[in-house]
């Protein structure tokens, strides 16, 4: 029994080049059986290319793809037992909903009565049991997407691949479908690879997120890890709003490090226990602090920051009022900082002197 036995998909040293252009750099990735993995990144970073290589729709320049431990590089897509859902649904326009969903069963030699039962169940699962006789063109976008999902899962694929399946839907529907999709994935326990450039989709749905940029994997981790402990400046900047500050290590002691931020002063930061970097005195780094972790209070009468935290003095330059929260643009030392704080009725006024509390656990040390 090798350790890859419980992996639904393995990418080993996978590379995709188009001529001189490398769309996906050497990538290693394992996807656990039954888990929901998201490829997240900006447009053009190689998400679709990666997904299509797993599907067998795009050839692999170098490396190896294995599904359930079996190398599939030379296996054509129709023999890979996958379910694929496309951005624009791709329902067969000349077939009824029923024939669309039953399509894959035909090639698995499923007997007629079982086909009937399974198509019925799949339509039930996507909550469209009465749409069987309709044509795809008679369905709304959201309904078409459900049918596309039913068509993909009815064949009980080893892996379900979804390329921005929600991006063609309007905002409200997108959130409903997000919940729905997660429910179905959970019910079936089906290994799922989901592609999106929408960070909130990724955070809401995934067991694990792969953040990609320029054809490279920047970080792999569960949503909290990727959000709270970004591994690179790119990840910190791509998910949410972060302050990214140039800094230098002053001292390191176990999980604590003291850093000097240029033009701001000394701050405490947390080092992950598994972080392999030496982080010796004098090393230049970047410090990332999420905007919503910077807590503001009026400078007059501010409480002491408490242990493992620091208080910085600053002034509010601009307020961006957003209802529940306000985004503040601050001047502190010779730096500009962003802070997002919940507000009670009135935001702090522009020009106000404030105390900014920075906790050590919210400061993440990134490579320079």
């Amino acid at each position, binding site marked *: 029994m090798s350790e890859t036995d419980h992996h639904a998909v393995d990418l080993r040293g996978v590379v995709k080049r188009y001529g001189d252009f490398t769309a996906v750099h050497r990538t290693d990735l394992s996807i656990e059986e039954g888990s929901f993995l998201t490829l997240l990144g900006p447009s053009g970073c190689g998400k679709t290319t990666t997904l299509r290589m797993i599907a067998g729709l795009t050839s692999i320049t170098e490396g190896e793809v294995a599904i359930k431990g079996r190398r599939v590089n030379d296996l054509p897509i129709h023999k890979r037992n996958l*379910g*694929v859902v496309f951005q624009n649904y791709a329902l067969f326009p000349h077939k009824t909903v029923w024939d669309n969903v039953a399509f894959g069963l035909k090639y698995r030699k499923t007997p007629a009565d079982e086909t009937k039962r399974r198509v019925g169940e799949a339509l039930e699962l996507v909550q469209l049991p009465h749409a069987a006789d309709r044509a795809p063109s008679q369905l709304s976008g959201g309904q078409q997407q459900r049918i596309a999902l039913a068509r993909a899962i009815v064949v009980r694929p080893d892996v379900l691949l979804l390329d921005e399946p929600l991006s063609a839907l309007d905002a409200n529907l997108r959130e409903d479908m997000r919940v729905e999709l997660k429910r179905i994935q959970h019910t079936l326990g089906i290994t799922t690879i989901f592609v999106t450039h929408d960070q909130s989709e990724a955070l809401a749905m995934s067991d694990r997120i792969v953040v990609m940029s320029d054809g490279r994997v920047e970080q792999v981790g569960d949503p909290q890890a990727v959000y709270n402990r970004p591994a690179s400046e790119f990840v910190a900047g791509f998910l949410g709003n972060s302050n990214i500050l140039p800094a230098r290590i002053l001292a390191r002691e176990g999980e604590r490090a003291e850093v000097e931020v240029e033009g701001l002063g000394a701050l405490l930061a947390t080092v992950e226990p598994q972080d392999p970097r030496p982080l010796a005195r004098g090393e230049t780094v970047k410090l990332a602090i999420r905007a919503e972790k910077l807590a503001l209070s009026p400078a007059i009468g501010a409480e002491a920051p408490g242990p493992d935290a620091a208080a910085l003095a600053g002034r509010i330059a601009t307020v961006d009022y957003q209802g529940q929260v306000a985004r503040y643009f601050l001047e502190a030392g010779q730096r500009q900082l962003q802070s997002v704080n919940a507000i009670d009725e009135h935001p702090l006024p522009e020009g106000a002197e404030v105390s900014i509390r920075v906790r050590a656990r919210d400061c993440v040390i990134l490579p320079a």
Partner: protein
Amino acid sequence: MPSGWSLIRLGTVLVYLFMFAPVAVVILLAFNASQFGAFPMEGLSLRWFAALWENDAIVRAFETSLLLGLLTAVISTTLGVLASLAMVRYDFPGKNLIAAALIAPILVPEVVLAVALLLFLGAIGVPKSFPLLLAGHVIFTLPFVILVVQARLVGVKREYEEAAMSLGAGPVETFFQITLPLILPAVLAGALFAFTISFDDITGTLFWKPGGVETVPTQIFAMLRNSISPEINALGAVMIVITVAVPLLGAALARWLSARGRTG
């Protein structure tokens, strides 16, 4: 500017009149009871159509034309669909050159094409024959099929085929289950083009046909050289009906098919 527009309208009407009046005359005279084609007509009759039916040479020419047209349509459409698939779905070296070569027969004057093929086959020692005639017709109907089918195929998203294959359908099954039904209207239109062009053709046919074989157009041509018989009017009328009715039927069929494709 109403006056400008009405001038254009008048001009258009006159041009069409000039084009279609002779056709109308032929059809009218086909029903003339008299031996001599002159107006006013002396009475209506179907005798010239009956005479056609009894003229062995004409019936044979008709059979030849039909067979030639049908075979041309089948072969041209098959090759045209395959070529279009290659052009639209695959990348290979020399693709642009091949694409240009496939369309070229439309651009080259038919006489030049006809002579060229004849000289070429003469040079390699192949005698004139029915298959040669058929090959000629296929060569110059093929571009029409390719143009029509390619245009439609470009509009059929690759994702339909990819979805089918992801569900387990092999390339051949995907073609017959997904691609062909989606391009069927264009395939039928291409086949009809091929048939009517072949059925009407005279230039190439005159060069390529073996001795003793006549198609309807070459038969009419031969008859004209002897005398202007009223049978020719009747034959002309039949040709007109076929070459107009076949595309109309085809268009109706295509519209019906694509309507059915949209709604279920």
